[in-house]
């Protein structure tokens, strides 16, 4: 479980996070949503340890990050997996090389053990016959799968995803969402996803945090988000015509 207690973060005069508290449970897909500029990415980077909050604490299964030594922080980071918006695969390595990279870097496994593990995770993300291809030779959806495979190859306790389905067609986006959801439950990982994709919210949002202007505006599940009367949330969620119609139908059905 990840617990966040009153974190603040500023860049010069700009106060980006103004005191956010929440917790992210194990085995659940936790979503952070909000408009561009609401502080989602800064919040996620604080969770990842890439930014140090000016105030407040973040603890991972009881271990407060800011109180750990540099080496303990590095060890903790090895328990984290991250799927970047642009996949962030290493261009100079093949698919197999990318997935094998953390194993080669941090374990003492033999080449054949690493190969077995790589084959297993690539199969788990439904990626076959791509081991020797370079990232530039595969599609965006496949790159996301490789990124997920790389993120889970070390059996992480925490999985972070920054807009994992941006730039993907709706069908592939749903496949990626479901894959992350399945992996979260299968390996009992604490997953935090930064997104503004409402399909993801509806599909896999077991816990949702809505950020607005650096503050937590609303918190709940994908079932509750339909019922909320919070104006900021409804404005955000039902900004598209499709969702407006869905909401209208829901209200009519309820009445």
């Amino acid at each position, binding site marked *: 479980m990840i617990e966040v207690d009153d974190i603040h973060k500023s860049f010069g005069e700009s106060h980006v996070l103004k005191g956010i508290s929440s917790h992210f449970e194990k085995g659940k897909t936790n979503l952070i949503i909000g408009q561009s500029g609401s502080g989602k990415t800064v919040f996620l980077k604080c969770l990842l340890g*890439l930014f140090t909050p000016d105030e407040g604490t973040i603890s991972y299964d009881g271990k407060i990050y800011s109180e750990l030594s540099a080496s303990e922080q590095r060890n903790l*980071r090895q328990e984290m997996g991250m799927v970047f918006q*642009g996949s*962030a695969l290493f261009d100079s390595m093949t698919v197999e090389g990318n997935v094998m990279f953390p194993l*080669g*870097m941090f374990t003492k496994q033999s080449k054949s053990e690493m190969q077995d593990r790589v084959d297993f995770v690539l199969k788990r993300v439904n990626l076959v016959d791509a081991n020797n291809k370079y990232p530039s030779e595969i599609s965006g959806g496949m790159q996301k799968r490789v990124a997920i495979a790389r993120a889970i190859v070390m059996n992480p306790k925490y999985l972070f995803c920054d807009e994992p389905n941006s730039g993907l067609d709706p069908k592939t986006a749903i496949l990626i969402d479901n894959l992350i959801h399945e992996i979260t439950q299968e390996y009992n990982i604490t997953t935090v996803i930064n997104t503004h994709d409402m399909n993801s919210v509806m599909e896999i949002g077991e816990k949702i945090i809505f950020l607005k202007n650096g503050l937590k505006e609303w918190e709940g599940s994908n079932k509750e988000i339909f019922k909320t009367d919070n104006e900021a949330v409804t404005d955000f969620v039902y900004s598209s015509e499709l969702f407006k119609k869905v909401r209208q139908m829901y209200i009519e059905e309820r009445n």
Partner: protein
Amino acid sequence: MNYIASIGSYFIMIKEVFKKPTKWSIMKTLILKEIDELVYGSMGIIIFISFFIGGVVSIQTALNITNPLIPRNLIGFATRQSVILEFAPTFTSIIMAGKVGSYITSSIGTMRVTEQIDALEIMGVNSLNYLVFPKIIAMLFYPFVIAIAMYVGIFGGWTAGVFGGFSSSADFVEGLQLDFIPFHVTYSFIKSIVFALIIATIPSFHGYYMKGGALEVGKASTTAFVWTSVVIIIINYILTQLLLG
């Protein structure tokens, strides 16, 4: 003020490069790859430039000897001194700042833009050690490049002098051996090691700490080349004063 902050950040970066080393089995591969890219991959252009620079020095010297009392072996002497003292270590380093430096900045800068460096950091890898340390070690082989540049430069001078009809081979070789001070070669190698560290680290700094997108990668490469050249010129002056002054 920005310049002072940048200089401070540069030295902090250097300190970080030597912290928490990457696993040796991986580092070994990275170093060999960088030697291939940065050192071996630059041999062609270095040989080409050195040959013609040596030739031009030889011709220029010959054309400026109008007094018949000046011995023709001066052509070999001047070529040797110019090539060993300046053209091989300094001129070649400016070329390398363009070729290798821009490669280093753009490759690290692209990794920054595409979040590959963030990916390394999140995995718990010391990204500065992983990216910059192999380049520094690879560039320690740079004096070998300079040695070849010296040899080829002098050979270029001999070719231009002899086949251009400016000097006999015997006069040229006699000039090469005249008043030879071995420390000049040592001085040249000391300079080349210092320049190698500059070429490896300043472009890395500009690539690693760049912000923005693809356009900024290009701008960072240009800035890195300018600053690497400026620092090489200044350090060249200081080292010359210290070692030969």
